[in-house]
């Protein structure tokens, strides 16, 4: 009886256990790892992927997928940089960019919901279009924030600290708390799980399924734009090819966090742990001086291992 409980605990908390094993492994191998500075590094570097991954979790919970996040990230970043570059107040700029992100996300959602397309196909196409729009908008060159007072104010999002903790970490924490609350305590949260669990049943029980779908893609777009403003603030410029491959990182974080790719089952806290595992891997492999080519293989292997374990234990 006692052993069964331990086994169940191990299975339920497998993402957390993976994270802890990695922490112990890396910190025993490298003395620099367990320093406050380095922990801030990891959290700060993780924040961008983690925020996108929250949006991705919402979409995947409805049994959809959003491949546009990388392109949307680049486009909203370019827009943010050009607005700030025109010396406009950062508050106004960020509000505008978040609204644009949400609007583009919503239109992807409309295509998925009203067009009755598979999310994979619809977002694959949108990914291409948005990347093209970004290249047209940026003319293929990076956009610099310039040196104005407003630019410096904006860069605070990337470099500022509150109570000694970097701002990106605060933003990540707030995003997770809001998402956790929404999924657990609001009607929309329950609809998201219901939709992923059984779309037909959800529709039959009188819930406007299309509206839920559009809402999750809009939220995903907004969070992409938010993550993008952090990256632009950290780099002081926007790159036309920014965000390439970020959809894969976000999906990996969601999967590592134990959310089911077929929807309906998963927790937002799992996604945070998944993103932390990836961030910690990046940082740890750097600190351990693993050859860059092998880093990719190790990361792939860890994700594969986690997914295989998940597949075995969640049946």
């Amino acid at each position, binding site marked *: 009886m006692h052993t069964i409980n331990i086994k169940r605990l191990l299975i339920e908390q497998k993402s957390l256990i993976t994270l802890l094993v990695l922490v112990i*492994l890396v910190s*025993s*191998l*490298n003395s*620099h*790892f367990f*320093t406050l*500075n*380095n922990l801030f*590094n990891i959290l*700060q*570097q993780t924040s*961008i992927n983690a925020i996108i991954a929250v949006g991705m979790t919402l979409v995947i919970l409805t049994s959809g997928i959003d491949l546009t996040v990388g392109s949307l990230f680049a486009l909203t970043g370019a827009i943010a940089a050009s607005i700030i570059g025109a010396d406009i107040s950062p508050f106004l700029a960020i509000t505008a960019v978040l609204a644009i992100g949400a609007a583009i996300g919503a239109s992807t959602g409309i295509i998925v919901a009203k067009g009755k397309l598979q999310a994979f196909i619809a977002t694959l196409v949108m990914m291409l279009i948005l990347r093209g729009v970004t290249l047209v908008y940026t003319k293929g060159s*990076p956009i*610099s924030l310039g040196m104005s007072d407003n630019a410096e104010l904006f860069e605070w999002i*990337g*470099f500022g600290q509150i109570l000694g903790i970097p701002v990106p970490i605060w933003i990540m924490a707030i995003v997770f708390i809001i998402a956790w609350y929404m999924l657990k305590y609001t009607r929309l949260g329950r609809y998201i799980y219901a939709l992923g669990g059984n779309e037909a049943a959800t529709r039959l029980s009188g819930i406007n399924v299309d509206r839920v779908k559009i809402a999750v893609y809009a939220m995903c777009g907004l969070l992409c734009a938010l993550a993008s403003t952090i*990256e632009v603030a*950290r*780099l*002081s*410029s926007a*790159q036309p*090819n*920014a965000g*390439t491959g970020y959809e894969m990182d976000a999906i990996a974080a969601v999967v590592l966090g134990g959310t089911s790719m077929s929807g309906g089952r998963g927790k937002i806290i799992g996604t945070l742990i998944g993103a932390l595992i990836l961030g910690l891997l*990046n*940082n740890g492999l*750097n*600190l*351990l*001086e693993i*050859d*860059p*080519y092998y*880093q990719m293989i190790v990361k792939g292997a860890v994700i594969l291992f986690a997914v295989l374990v998940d597949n075995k234990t969640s049946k």
Partner: protein
Amino acid sequence: MKFNKFVTYASALTLGLTLSAQIFAKENIALVISTLNNPFFVTLKDGAQKKADELGYNLIVLDSQNNPAKELANVEDLIVKNPKVILINPTDSDAVGNAVLAANKANIPVITLDRASNKGDVISHIASDNIAGGKMAGDYIVEKLGKDAKVIQLEGITGTSAARERGEGFNRALQEYQFTLLASQPADFDRAKGMNVMQNLLTSQPNVQAVFAQNDEMALGAMRAIQAAGIKNIMIIGFDGTDDGIKAVERGRLAATVAQQPELIGAMGVETANSIIKGEQVATEIPVELKLITK
């Protein structure tokens, strides 16, 4: 039982990694490279690695995968390890700025390779000497055709440092030997434009004997135009030493290409880092020689 096995493997792995870490307990120099998906930068890294081994340093190589965000994260991770010097081959001269500033803040000296940084304190910038390369091309033309040579120049994208410096070097040769420059027109480093511009120039300047193109792509475009017009005996010189360029030289289609030496850039980066560690003065700009490749 299974758990025991896992513990055995894990501790063996830990022991192995710790041991190997101790063997390499030399002083650290770090190289943050824009991408390891491009032969030019792989060669640059190999050059740095060889020199580091020779001088007894441990070279930490991190790949930015052409992503400035990854580049910044790499530099932040490195700062924790406190290497003696960070060599950065930027993904983009603007976007690398905050990575350089982060290293500045941690008092770790920074050297840039191949591309410069527009922000922060960089002790030394090491890149190809494009001016010398342009001069080299001019010298070669005069060496082969004499001072009466009639020459056309195809320029790169106006305003880029590569186009400006290569043109300046070529101009120096022109001043020195007083050969005849029939025309000098931009073709934007592009193969198709190189072909079009050359086609137009062939009709207006049929006496041309040599073409200097500021990169291999334009040189190969010019080569096509000359072939299509059925003209022989026009000497073409390219720049960069790309794979296509070198192949064309080997087949005798191009007379020469002025090649960059990425291996030497990497090696000089580590050498300069070594000088900084020893407390010696280093130059803020270190030009790396180019090499003329002929058949």
